[in-house]
């Protein structure tokens, strides 16, 4: 519903701006689903980082911690994955790959250590500290690709390709990599943690009512929120590791087209439900893949797709607010 409305409004806007709206929508569709290659190598490849980051966001948001720094944590993971990936040449994939992904995971968590410490020690809002660290991470990437991690010719601002053993297996004939399985596994895992474990329930309770969680549930809310933020950073870092080992095989600037921010939308649109995030991640992956097709075929700027994304989110938020108001009125 929301998606249809978003597409309609975008089409109307394009028509008014003098584009052929029907052709643009057609190109969007073909770019996302037009062929087996488009589905696997464009849509799904973009969906993977969005799903993983969305899961990380859900972990934090469900605990009431607003992690806006997934972009930076993604880059921290990508840097660590590249660095380790360059040093595992000659090792078997069974060692190299887990080592690279673990490095990305830990680097993402390390990237939120400072926000966690600032929050616990001085009460600095994590919204601000995690957001600001995004800029630090982006600068760090550009420092790395022009310094310690620059390719051996020292010409281009990017790293050498990582060792073959450190790359994720790819589906033959496509660019789709095993990161998709990892994302699906993570989604099911998080769903289990939230829904079936006491720890996951307590995390949700802290997010829904921190005072009650402490007084009635005897949960240490501050500790829980710190853990959630660390976990969230680790998952976003893992997404960066998956991107390097599955898609780019190297580190460069603008590795992420804003996955860390779109991931927040993906998570919110799924109402922070892990399995829902798989669906919304897929949807946003398709929109972003289709945007490329639209630009190539119909000459419509890819940013038009952000209009659709924004409208989808607004419609869903409005619907949520309306439902809540109805519930409140029913209760009163």
């Amino acid at each position, binding site marked *: 519903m929301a998606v249809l409305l978003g597409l309609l409004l975008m089409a109307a806007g394009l028509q008014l701006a003098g584009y052929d709206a029907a052709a643009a929508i057609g190109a969007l569709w073909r770019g996302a689903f037009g062929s087996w290659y488009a589905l696997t190598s464009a849509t799904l490849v973009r969906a993977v980082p969005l799903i993983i980051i969305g899961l990380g966001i859900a972990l934090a948001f469900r605990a009431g911690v607003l992690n806006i720094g997934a972009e930076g944590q993604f880059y921290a993971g990508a840097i660590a994955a590249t660095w380790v990936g360059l040093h595992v040449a000659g090792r078997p994939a069974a060692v190299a790959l887990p080592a690279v992904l673990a490095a990305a995971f830990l680097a993402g968590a390390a990237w939120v250590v400072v926000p966690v410490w600032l929050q616990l020690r001085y009460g600095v809002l994590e919204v601000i500290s995690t957001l600001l660290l995004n800029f630090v991470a982006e600068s760090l990437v550009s420092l790395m690709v022009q310094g310690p991690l620059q390719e051996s010719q020292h010409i281009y601002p990017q790293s050498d390709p990582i060792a073959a053993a450190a790359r994720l297996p790819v589906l033959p004939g496509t660019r789709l990599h095993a990161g998709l399985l990892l994302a699906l596994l993570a989604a099911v895992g998080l769903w289990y943690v939230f829904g*079936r*474990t*006491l*720890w996951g*329930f307590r995390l*949700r*309770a802290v997010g*829904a*009512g921190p*005072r*009650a*969680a*402490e*007084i*009635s*549930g*005897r949960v240490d809310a501050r500790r829980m929120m710190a853990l959630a933020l660390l976990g969230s950073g680790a998952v976003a870092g893992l997404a960066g590791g998956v991107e390097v080992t599955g898609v780019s095989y190297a580190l460069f600037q603008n590795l992420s087209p804003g996955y860390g921010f779109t991931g927040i939308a993906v998570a919110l649109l799924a109402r922070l439900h892990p399995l829902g995030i798989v669906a919304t991640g897929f949807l946003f992956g398709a929109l972003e893949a289709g945007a490329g097709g639209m630009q190539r075929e119909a000459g419509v700027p890819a940013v038009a797709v952000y209009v659709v994304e924004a409208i989808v989110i607004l419609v869903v938020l409005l619907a949520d607010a309306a439902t809540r108001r109805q*519930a409140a009125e*029913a*209760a009163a």
Partner: protein
Amino acid sequence: MSTPSSLALRGIRKRFGSVQALRGADFTLAPGELHALLGENGAGKTTLMHVAYGMVRPDAGEVTVDGVSRALASPRVARRLGIGMVHQHFTSVPAFTVAENVALAAGWPVAPGALRERVRTVADRFGLPLDPDARAGQLSVALKQRLEIVKALATETRILLLDEPTAVLAPGEAEELLRVVRAFTATGGAAVLITHKLDEALAAADRVTVLRQGSVVFSGPIAGQTSASLAAAMVGDEGRDGVRPPAAHREHAARDAVLVRLEELEVPRDSGYGIAVRRATLSIRAGEIVGIAAVEGNGQRELLRAVAGRLPPLRGRREVAGPVAFIPEDRTTEGLIPSLTLTENVVLGSRPDDPWIRRGRVDWKVARARTASLLAEFGVLAAGPDARAASLSGGNQQKLVAGRELARRPRVVVAENPTRGLDLRAAEAIHARLREAAAEGAAVLIYSSDLDEVLALADRVLAAARGLVSEVPPGATRAQIGELMVTGGR
């Protein structure tokens, strides 16, 4: 200063949800007088003054200002009639300057130079020097309170309503404030002083009105009153029993096990600064219900939380048998989480040995079945275990919290204001559960801001005053209890 004024409230009635806050209260304020308004928490003092200030529309009754009947639709209307109010909590904008805050309250235009002079004039006239350029957030507590008074007086105010203005002040600062109020009434203004400090009322006021459960139980000159007579009026003494003598089933108490033992316990304030409970020593035996009588803010809250294991003591010994059930005062922020389902709220209080917890996993089927049986057993009216806690009425929410806490057969039960805001039937149901828990051998500790509730439930009563806990002797009258609530027995 200006024309004499008077305020009269007649037959004021006000109901909030299921709580009848005012039951036909009468109150008159003569020009030039300082009138103390006393009563226990929840007696309706603040509500009555909010009616006079146009913040609360009464369900019935008449407000007369200067002999003219008025419908006070808003504080703005009240201010125009010369009524100003100092609220219980600070109402200044911390980032604004003193002058800007006064302008905001008085509706003056913000023209820096003229405004500064205007504020200085008002402040000096009442002997309340204040720097107009200081940021409100950076003032000391005493100066913040001074700013509140200047704000209330800024607009030709002739009737000043003060809601516990000295609660936050040190003794010297409180005297200073009362001196200012006296100066105001000496020039023809009239003031109402809501306070819990009886000494203060006796020292400063001309007349006194005592509210009890929404009705005026005493109104007259302060001359001839004592803190004992005022305390008696506050808690009521007509025809009701004091602490009841030990009931027959309590006679074996000395043989029962001691389940709660505190020795010289010191507990910090919940806010983190200062000491709330001073060297409390007490013990509670199995089967005993101990009630605490206290005026709000005298350490009883922290004492209960320390016993319940929710607030770590600073020093002293604390021996409490487990499991402990805790029914916190605020059910919607501390007792349960409104956005979660009833089942989830039951799981919120989980312990590792609960049947629905298996090695860190939650078996929701078991938890749901348990919740369903809790709903039936405790008479919680709800659509079912999957309903959101927010969809329940206050009474049913409280029954759910009580059910969750008591169903585990706790050895110690701690309850804070367990029936606040509940209607009679719901309150009775909660009382019955607490008595049942005691009958089954639990040690029960309750605090209620309603002394009647404490007396109705407790086998033994303790009074808390300024962090000091004292034993109320068996058979004590309500007046004696009131005295202990004020003096702490020392």
